């Protein structure tokens, strides 16, 4: 690690602030009319929300079924304590949390098979299933509509004495400890390599996959984590109220969690607790006003719709934005990152046994058919070690389809693709990327909300960590040589000055270079470039052509491009596709003088596209 790593106090500033707020709250907030019970309830919702924020705010998965895990944890803990099976309070909480996490594993496995709206709908429906189960199959244990009464208050056995935690402020301190630990863990997760991948999944799941991360593993993990947080919060709810209510399982509970998180600000960890404070404080406040007490939910509903419409990042987001505007905007500075360390960008070693001397990338008679349409027919292709190959063809020649099959993105109808002697036909982009081949896209596929550094980090992490690793508590920059690799990739595409700039603020040309930089940062030794010059002005074209030439050492490349001049300058050999078939192949000079290419390609263009 470098010498300018910020001090412990500075790095842990949010933890310190949260800790101080928790300590100060009992002395300050009662003057605003907040009782110990209200603050305890807020903390329980806040703890419940920490997990949900990891799931929704950081990973972008909007679940409407979190009540299932809140209820599960709560009822398991409450049952164990009231039935006397597990008299030990902490053990009962732990078992409740674990059971909730297991329920999360099952429901997550089912619901994560689809994303977006399907996910929201199916989590809502499964949440209701738990409500029904509580009332039918498990009625004997849960008490059905009556819930479980008489949950004993927590006790802490210290050997020489036992502390009985009574309601009121002792209960606040008890729950505050759990909240604080939950917050510290959640913040570590957010700042771990695992957390970096979560943010990438939220920003652009397809690119996260293409950079070699198995996003399903990450999604399922974070779902289980969120379920565990919910289970723990549910267990505390039962102890706090000495009663476990069946409506912990209700849709209203899931909905309240979603609303509180969005009002407070998703993706900030503190959003849920801020939202819970607003919700519960308003609720209590409005109850006391006789005229409008019964309209409290209507008022909250209106507030919610206004917030969603106008303040997209909730209260916490608005505050952060305000601070951001006062400071230097558009920068996302990672204070722990070492921005000076640099090394040569590593390249995945091809492996000693695999196909030495043979072609690095080979397609044997590949075809793709969509219904009656033949996009690509029987193309055979082979790329040698260290070669730069161009692929050209008029619009509709099947270049993109061909390219997608080479990259493992698309299954072939017929034929096979080999990477260093290993068949990769349709194995998927993630596996291909892990083998050492990466693609840059014609349309930029970047993580717009993240900085250049964070973008490149996602690519570097995939190579260092493999498809999936649950390094939840590890510091992002504690991995040896990570910053060096990130800086090297950024320097290679000449974006060092913009390293801490948010991608959405970059110019188009800079984004284009970052697009190439992401493919390079994976360490790939075979690179596929889909129209790297698309949309660039003349000056930037020169810049990118020079860049592509400069990186050829140790890498083989296939480039699809419309810019003939650039192609003739860059490529050693060129493959011409026409109407889905391979028309010709040879050196630039051979292609230029090939009569079939001239008539079919150059002539054909005039014929098809009368100017």
């Amino acid at each position: 690690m470098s010498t300018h790593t910020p001090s412990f106090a500075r790095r842990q500033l949010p933890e310190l602030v949260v800790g101080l707020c928790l300590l100060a709250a009992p002395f300050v907030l009662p003057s605003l009319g907040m009782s110990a019970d209200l603050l305890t309830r807020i903390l329980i919702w806040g703890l419940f929300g920490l997990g949900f924020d990891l799931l929704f705010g950081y990973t972008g998965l909007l679940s409407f079924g979190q009540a299932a895990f809140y209820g599960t944890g709560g009822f398991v803990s409450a049952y164990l304590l009231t039935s006397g099976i597990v008299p030990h309070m902490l053990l009962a909480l732990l078992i409740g949390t674990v059971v909730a996490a297991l329920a999360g594993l099952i429901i997550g496995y089912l619901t994560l098979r689809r994303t977006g709206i399907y996910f929201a709908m199916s989590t809502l429906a499964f949440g209701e299933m738990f409500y029904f189960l509580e009332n039918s199959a498990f009625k004997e244990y849960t008490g059905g509509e009556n819930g479980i009464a008489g949950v004993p208050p927590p006790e802490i056995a210290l050997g020489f004495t036992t502390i009985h935690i009574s309601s009121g402020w002792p209960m606040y301190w008890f729950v505050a400890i759990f909240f604080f630990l939950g917050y510290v863990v959640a913040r570590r997760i957010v700042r771990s390599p695992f957390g970096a991948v979560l943010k990438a999944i939220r920003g652009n799941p397809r690119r996260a996959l293409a950079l070699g991360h198995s996003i399903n593993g990450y999604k399922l993990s974070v779902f289980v984590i969120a379920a565990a947080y919910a289970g723990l919060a549910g267990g505390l709810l039962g102890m706090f109220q000495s009663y476990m209510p069946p409506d912990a399982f209700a849709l209203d509970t899931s909905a309240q969690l979603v609303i509180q998180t969005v009002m407070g600000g998703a993706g900030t960890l503190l959003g849920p607790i801020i939202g819970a404070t607003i919700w519960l404080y308003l609720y209590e406040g409005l109850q006391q006003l006789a005229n409008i007490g019964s309209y409290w939910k209507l008022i909250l509903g209106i507030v919610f719709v206004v917030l969603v419409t106008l303040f997209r990042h909730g209260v916490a987001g608005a505050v952060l934005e305000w601070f951001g505007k006062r400071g230097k905007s558009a920068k996302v500075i990672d204070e722990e990152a070492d921005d000076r360390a640099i090394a040569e960008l590593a390249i995945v070693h091809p492996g000693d046994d695999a196909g030495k001397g043979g072609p690095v990338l080979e397609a044997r008679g590949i075809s793709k058919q969509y219904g009656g349409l033949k996009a690509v027919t029987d193309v055979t292709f082979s790329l040698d070690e260290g070669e730069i190959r161009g692929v050209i063809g008029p619009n509709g020649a099947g270049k993109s389809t061909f390219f997608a099959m080479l990259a493992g993105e698309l299954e072939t109808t017929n034929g096979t693709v080999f990477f260093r002697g290993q068949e990769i036909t349709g194995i998927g982009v993630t596996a291909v990327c892990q083998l050492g081949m990466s693609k840059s896209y014609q349309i930029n596929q970047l993580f717009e909300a993240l900085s250049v550094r964070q973008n490149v980090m996602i690519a570097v992490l995939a190579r260092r960590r493999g498809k999936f690793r649950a390094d939840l508590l590890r510091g992002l920059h504690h991995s040896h040589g990570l910053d060096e690799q990130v800086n090297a990739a950024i320097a290679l595409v000449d974006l060092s000055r913009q390293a801490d700039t948010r991608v959405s603020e970059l110019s188009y040309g800079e984004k284009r270079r970052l697009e190439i930089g992401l493919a390079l940062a994976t360490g790939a030794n075979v690179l596929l470039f889909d129209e790297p010059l698309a949309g660039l002005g003349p000056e930037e074209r020169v810049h990118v052509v020079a860049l592509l030439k400069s990186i050829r050492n140790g890498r083989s490349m296939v480039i699809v491009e419309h810019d003939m001049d650039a192609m003739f300058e860059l490529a050693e050999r060129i493959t011409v596709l026409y109407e889905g078939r391979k028309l010709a192949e040879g050196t630039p000079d051979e292609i230029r003088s090939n009569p079939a290419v001239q008539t079919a390609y150059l002539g054909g263009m005039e014929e098809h596209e009368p100017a």
Partner: protein
Amino acid sequence: MPSMSLFFSQLFNGLAMGLLLALISTGLTIIYGTLGVVNFAHGALLVVGAYAGYSAYAMTESFLVAIAVGSAVALVVGLVVERGLMRMYYGRPPEDQILVTFGIGIILVEIVRSIYGGISLSVPTPEWGQGIARIGSLIYPLYRLQALGIAAATLAVLYYVLYRTSLGLIVRAGIEDSEMVNALGINVKRTFLLVFGIGAMAAGYAGVIDSPIVTLSPDMGHRVLVDSFVVVVIGGVGSFPGAIVGGIIAGEILSLTSMFNPAYSHVMLFVVMALVLIFRPQGLMGQEGRE
């Protein structure tokens, strides 16, 4: 072991329930299929329609007027919501659309609650629907039989509108590529408004038809939302035939499993949904690749 006649009567009951579930789900499917928005206010719109129908029925004693008023009120609410809010959300991520429609749902339900109170109400069966019907050995409440007929006829009309008229063609083209439809000189915005209105109206209409069978309460919207989600997840989101197939499957599961143990019939419904998600995540009639 249940007898054969019980089995057949439950099978028939399942069909009746299923078509009603399909009817309840169509509004959701129409709006999603065209606008790509999952309307989490769907259950609330049904509540609005059912209560408006209840008032109209109490005043005029005509169930037909109740149907007309319930549909019309839901239509107007739908149009206002589309104009006032949804329009701003078409370009925003699906999560935002879910959140705002959910919020709208809360507001609508709370308005209903502030007008009618929170207690349950029951809607009497219309005069022409009282009594029982005999079909062979089967004895069945007459109104349920009529509701089955109404639901089937309504679904047929909707199918005709969506698949056999030029409006339907525009709507279905708008699903595929709204920009292209716009470029062809068709006012997509107005079409979207119309579709949102029709979807809301379908919810209100279903609410009135359903009201003599269930008890009305402002919170019934939750159950409706869950049921229609299960139906469309089984059938395939955005697929009109999928909503019908999903509805009938759901109705049959609820009805047939309740022969053995009524407490588990709803749980079985979720089990089937889980099986669909495992083996055919896009839903039985859903298309691959559409989210």
